[in-house]
């Protein structure tokens, strides 16, 4: 049976003023909140746990389980922090969701706060999307005016305030503990764990940090049931997710589908690779996930299958590159990104990404030697698993996987004394380089 799309979060994005409370309510918005507020908080948590929802921000940790790690209430504050710092290269699902339908996230944040006993929630949005910030600020104001936020929400006795906070340009703030430090008004550097945020998070209080899409999925689970959610996806990767196709495909965009769909199926929906070319390599979940090739077209895009095939589902950011693309150029650029975004707190990542970029630059220019490949792998080996957070691990993924799949292409740069590719052929326009 061919997998088909399951529009849930994306169902009404094309309606006029899709971001307004009225449009959202016309499409069933805030019904799940009414249902949740009539349930004991523990039952809301249990529903999300039963659904098997796993974090949509990349790591795939079970969302309900994360919530259940909060210690018993001690009378002090507990916080929900929504991670809207979407910055992983290739990832472009949360930003369009927040632009088109911010009310979905607001409803999810209210239900989640109710489930975990939080009365002050934060949405940490990356600062480089000013119109999305406007939409979120507007959405909070609209929700408040309608009595969905504030004191005694819908007569339930439950109070909640949501603050939308803009970051200021730092990829590392997508890491949950760096995000918390940043939200506290500090440099965004990851914390040593444990303690985990569930125990000592924002202001050292119990805190749940979840990705936008995870929280936005909560209203549908509460409204339609854990069984409904589990009827999609696979056993251990249940439900739906937004798959973002970009690059050399005919119709790049957002495709909401059950987990377990394949790139072959998605490419058919997206009109295939651009005419006259074929698939060369792709990322299943952003630049921090090891690259795949044409051999992986039928790998089911769920956490287990992608892991078994040697990569990670990550954020379902499917960046597609055709045969005109130089893999060494692509990897060098990603590596320069990690070098730039390394926060500098730990040595393996700070020094390692610096040297990786140096060595790769030399290779891309056709200088250096074959021994440099061993040097790259050695540096990667000294970063992977030795860095404070996942940024360092992510930096090694494109390098090790590209050497695995495209070693010959690295060597071709050395043999030719330069890059064998013409970059103008990869562009999406006819205009030549300046």
């Amino acid at each position, binding site marked *: 049976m061919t997998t088909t799309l399951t529009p849930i979060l994306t169902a009404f994005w094309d309606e006029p003023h899709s971001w307004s409370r009225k449009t959202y309510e016309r499409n069933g918005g805030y019904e799940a909140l009414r249902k949740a507020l009539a349930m004991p908080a523990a039952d809301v948590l249990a529903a999300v746990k039963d659904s098997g929802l796993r974090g949509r921000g990349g790591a795939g940790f079970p969302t309900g389980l994360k919530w259940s790690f909060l210690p018993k209430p001690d009378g002090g504050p507990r916080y929900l922090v929504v991670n809207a710092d*979407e910055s992983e290269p290739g*990832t*472009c699902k949360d*930003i369009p969701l927040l632009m088109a339908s911010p009310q979905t996230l607001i409803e999810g944040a209210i239900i989640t706060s109710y489930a975990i006993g939080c009365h002050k929630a934060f949405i940490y949005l990356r600062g*480089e999307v000013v119109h999305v910030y406007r939409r979120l600020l507007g959405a909070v104001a609209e929700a408040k005016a309608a009595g969905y936020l504030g004191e005694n929400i819908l007569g339930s006795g439950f109070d909640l305030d949501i603050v939308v906070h803009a970051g200021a*340009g730092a990829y590392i703030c997508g890491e949950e503990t760096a995000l918390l430090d940043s939200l506290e008004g500090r440099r965004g550097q990851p914390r040593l764990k444990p303690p985990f945020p569930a125990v000592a998070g924002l202001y050292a209080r119990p805190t749940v940090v979840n990705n936008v899409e995870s929280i936005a999925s909560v209203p549908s689970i509460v409204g339609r049931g854990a069984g409904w959610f589990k009827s999609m996806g696979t056993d251990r990767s249940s439900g739906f997710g937004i798959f973002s196709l970009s690059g050399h495909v005919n119709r790049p965009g*957002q495709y909401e589908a059950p987990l377990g769909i394949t790139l072959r199926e998605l490419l058919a929906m997206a009109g295939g690779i651009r005419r006259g070319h074929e698939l060369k390599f792709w990322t299943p979940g952003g630049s921090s996930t090891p690259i795949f090739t044409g051999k992986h077209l039928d790998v089911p895009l769920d956490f287990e299958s992608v892991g078994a095939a040697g990569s990670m589902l990550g954020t379902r950011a499917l960046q597609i590159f055709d045969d005109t693309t130089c893999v060494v*150029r692509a990897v060098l650029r990603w590596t320069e990104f990690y070098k730039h975004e390394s926060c500098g707190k730990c040595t393996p990542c700070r020094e390692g990404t610096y040297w990786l970029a140096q060595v790769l630059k030399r290779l891309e220019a056709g200088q250096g030697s074959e021994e440099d490949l061993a040097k790259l792998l050695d540096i990667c080996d000294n970063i992977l698993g030795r860095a404070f957070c996942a940024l360092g691990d992510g930096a090694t993924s494109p390098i090790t996987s590209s050497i695995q799949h495209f070693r010959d292409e690295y060597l071709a740069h050395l043999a030719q004394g330069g890059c064998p590719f013409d*970059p103008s052929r990869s562009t999406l326009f006819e205009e030549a380089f*300046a």
Partner: protein
Amino acid sequence: MPLTADVTERLTADAHQIMERYPVARSALLPMLHLVQSEEGYISPDGIAFCARTLDLTPAEVAAVATFYTQFKRRPNGTYTVGVCTNTLCAVMGGDAIFETLEKNLGSGHDETTGDGTITLERVECNAGCDYAPVVMVNWEFFDNQTPGSAKAIVDKLRAGEAVVPTRGAAKVHTFKEASRVLAGFLDGHENEGVGAGPASLQGTLLARREGWTAPDPGAGTTPVDGTKQKGQS
């Protein structure tokens, strides 16, 4: 230019509004840095001193934070930041060509401002618009599916003092200072302008509607519904 008493008084009122949002005052630091940037167009020594005084921090503590984040500028910024995405995907699809064109056209490189103070050119990292590659951001508004020619037309208009309209964003791009004030958390009333979703964002939504594909019926419970994967199937 030092902050005058009037300006300081106005900024102080805004800063207190920001601080009221948070249980702990120091959380107001990032929005306050956006605020001082909205006044002076960069993070000046005066701006740092203002934040430090207001939050009872040392200037060194404030400077340490300000220098960590790329959106906080250490030199006076142009009226418009033109940011070309040159992370891998956009670069390959044409971002590198766009950047080279603008660099030649403006005569300024990365993180440099044109002599007339209009434009600060930047290479930016992935801005979550990959399905619209190559992407250019002007004061953090989206300009999708750019070419060297279309990007040059944007900067020509900006330098001629004409308004430019983002692909997905407000009805026009506002100045760097105005955008910075929004980032401090002060809504400017433009949230209902522009589209909800661009064409790429809607690909799946519209395809599903054409094909009659929907999410399963909630009443179906554990029964597999046509169009969805059965449990365990992979």
